[in-house]
């Protein structure tokens, strides 16, 4: 033992027994050193001469100072002085707590934190999971969406759980064999309707996908929510594309639809996008999907519409919640949201009414023939659909917190393309 170290300095001892470096001894030593204050000395006893010879090198690498060795017949003792540097540039971990409360055995997303997230977390903070203590020195991020008021919805935790619980499989959960046997006229109409849906669902995916990487990870529920939204829309693109292909006919990807969707991508404000996409666009699609489910000529089409409808309801719900909260915090945002709808409408002045190609396809799909009597009934149903869409749009806008007059104005501004 070197003379410069007094016995009184030894604050801890650990017996390595037969552990070796590379075989778990490092773990034992790290745990033992946690109990030693910086500058304190740890004595390690080992029966192995090789381990004792290797320990000083390990100590240096780990930031400690080898301060003594004693090689005896009955074993070896190596002393190291704990280095002053912190292994992690962060404060200590908090003491163990009770953890989140379970509800009926479930750990729900709404229950994993107490209360709402901080309203304005550090926009430079990184991917810090809920509850984690963050080490400093990491590269700074910059999250454009870092204010809770802009992106939060009070029931986003519940919506995340619903989204996880209601996943489905577009390859297996649709009775694809039911597509067989439709006549050419009906199948061609179905192909056009499905092509229209799939085309629109691309925008419904790209919009939340664009926001997702801008969200401060401290709003993890919003991250999970947008992830589920993107995933839902991916499946909708899949299922409607599959249905359009399944019967062998093809439809048009309409330029008027593309124009309408391009203006959705132009909107970079999160809440304005909630209004234009979730509430107005996907809200209107709820009625369209219900119509398709009811009038579908085959079980595959009906099932696809029904499952997509279930997902879109969540998306609409989030949009309403997000806007309701935003207007509650700042009622003046009504003006911003109306301006967003007006700006979009101004870009769509060339559109007048829903494309006749789609109106015809919906009518033929519902009529399942070109017989005048069948077409008459179907056309009436399509007219009813348009009225239903408008009535429900007004109702949803009212739920957001808009006055009746503003709701009427916003509804009138909504794209004739439906999405």
């Amino acid at each position, binding site marked *: 033992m070197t003379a410069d170290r007094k016995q009184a300095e030894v604050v801890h001892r650990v017996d390595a027994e037969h552990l070796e*470096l*590379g075989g778990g001894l*490092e773990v034992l030593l790290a745990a033992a050193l946690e109990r030693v204050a910086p500058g304190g000395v740890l004595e390690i006893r080992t029966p192995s001469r*090789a381990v004792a*010879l*290797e320990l*000083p*090198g*390990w100590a*240096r*690498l780990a*930031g400690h*100072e*080898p301060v003594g060795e004693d090689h005896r017949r009955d074993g070896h003792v190596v002393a190291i002085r704990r*280095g*002053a*540097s*912190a292994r992690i*540039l962060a404060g200590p971990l908090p003491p163990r707590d009770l953890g989140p409360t379970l509800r009926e055995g479930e750990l729900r997303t709404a229950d994993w934190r107490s209360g709402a997230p901080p309203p304005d977390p550090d926009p430079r903070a990184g991917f810090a999971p809920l509850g984690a203590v963050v080490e*400093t*020195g990491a590269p700074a991020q910059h999250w454009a969406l870092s204010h809770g008021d802009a992106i939060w919805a009070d029931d986003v935790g519940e919506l995340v759980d619903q989204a996880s619980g209601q996943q489905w499989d577009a390859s297996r959960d649709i009775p694809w064999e039911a597509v067989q046997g439709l006549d050419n006229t009906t199948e061609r109409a179905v192909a056009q309707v499905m092509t229209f849906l799939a085309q629109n669902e691309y925008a419904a995916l790209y919009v939340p996908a664009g926001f997702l990487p801008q969200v401060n990870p401290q709003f993890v529920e919003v991250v999970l929510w947008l992830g589920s939204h993107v995933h839902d829309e991916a499946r909708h693109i899949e299922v409607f594309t599959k249905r359009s292909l399944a019967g062998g006919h093809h439809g048009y990807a309409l330029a008027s639809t593309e124009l309408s969707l391009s203006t959705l991508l132009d909107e970079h404000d999160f809440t304005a996008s909630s209004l234009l996409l979730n509430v107005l666009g996907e809200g209107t699609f709820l009625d369209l999907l219900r119509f398709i489910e009811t009038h579908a000529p085959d079980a595959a089409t009906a099932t696809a519409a029904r499952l997509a409808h279930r997902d879109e309801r969540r998306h609409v719900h989030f949009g309403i919640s997000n806007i309701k909260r935003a207007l509650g915090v700042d009622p003046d945002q009504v003006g911003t949201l109306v301006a967003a709808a007006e700006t979009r409408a101004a870009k769509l002045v060339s559109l007048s009414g829903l494309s006749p190609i789609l109106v015809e396809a919906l009518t033929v799909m519902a009529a399942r023939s070109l017989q005048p009597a069948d077409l008459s009934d179907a056309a009436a149903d399509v007219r009813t659909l348009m009225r239903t869409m408008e009535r429900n749009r007004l109702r949803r806008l009212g739920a957001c917190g808009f006055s009746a007059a503003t709701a009427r104005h916003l509804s009138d501004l909504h794209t004739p393309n439906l999405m």
Partner: protein
Amino acid sequence: MSGAELRLGAVAYHPRIVTIWERFRTYFADAGVPTDYILFSNYERLVEAVLDGTVEIGWNTNTAYVALDHRAQGATRILGMRDVDRDWATVLVMRKGQWPGSVAGLNGRVLALGSRDSGHAAILPLHYLAAQGVDLATLRLRRFDTDIGKHGDTGDSELHVVRAVAEGKADAGALSAAYFSAFRAESVPAVADLEVVWRSPDYYHCNFTVLDALDPELSERWSEALLAMDYDDPSLRAAMDLEGVRRWYPGDREGYASLRTAMLEQSVIS
């Protein structure tokens, strides 16, 4: 470049050297001793650069320092070194269970060594083994001269050493304790069945060297700035980790005596 800027030479033994010195360059500027860095491909060129005044400060290996000091006839000063440089050591490793019980038992065996210009993996091992009673003439040396000019900094020749021992191509191998521990920490497969059978006395490794001619007040300020570098500063930790230092210390000549003797014995300097 301002006239007041010091020039420091370092050897580019790895791309990380640029990352390290870009950060340290900013640090020294902020500390009031602006220091630019110039990279060299080998330590011999760096020693020449210190001697001819191309750079004022050389970030030297122990072998480079001894060579520089020898050629400057002792007219050098050490401005600082890393914590790890103060108790560098060479270890001998063998496959588990092969230790003959004494260093002299290695007579007649195959010994793997790192690059011949490496103080810790070639020059000092032979010096110490001879001092411990090994007849060097009986040893069959298996040298891995893979990073000549870098004085063993890359660790590459030492990786060859442990692999040669693990594969039975050598009975024992010499390398720095630091690299052996690093290989362990990185779970390099070759070291799994090796054990340390002998460790040398401690000696010094790298240091920042200047010629005595450099303004003492300036070199003192530079040294103070170096020693003030704080590992707990988040903006410095990454660069200091890359440099393998947690704390800088002032240096002295004491820990280079064994290497100087070894280099003279082996005619590395004369």
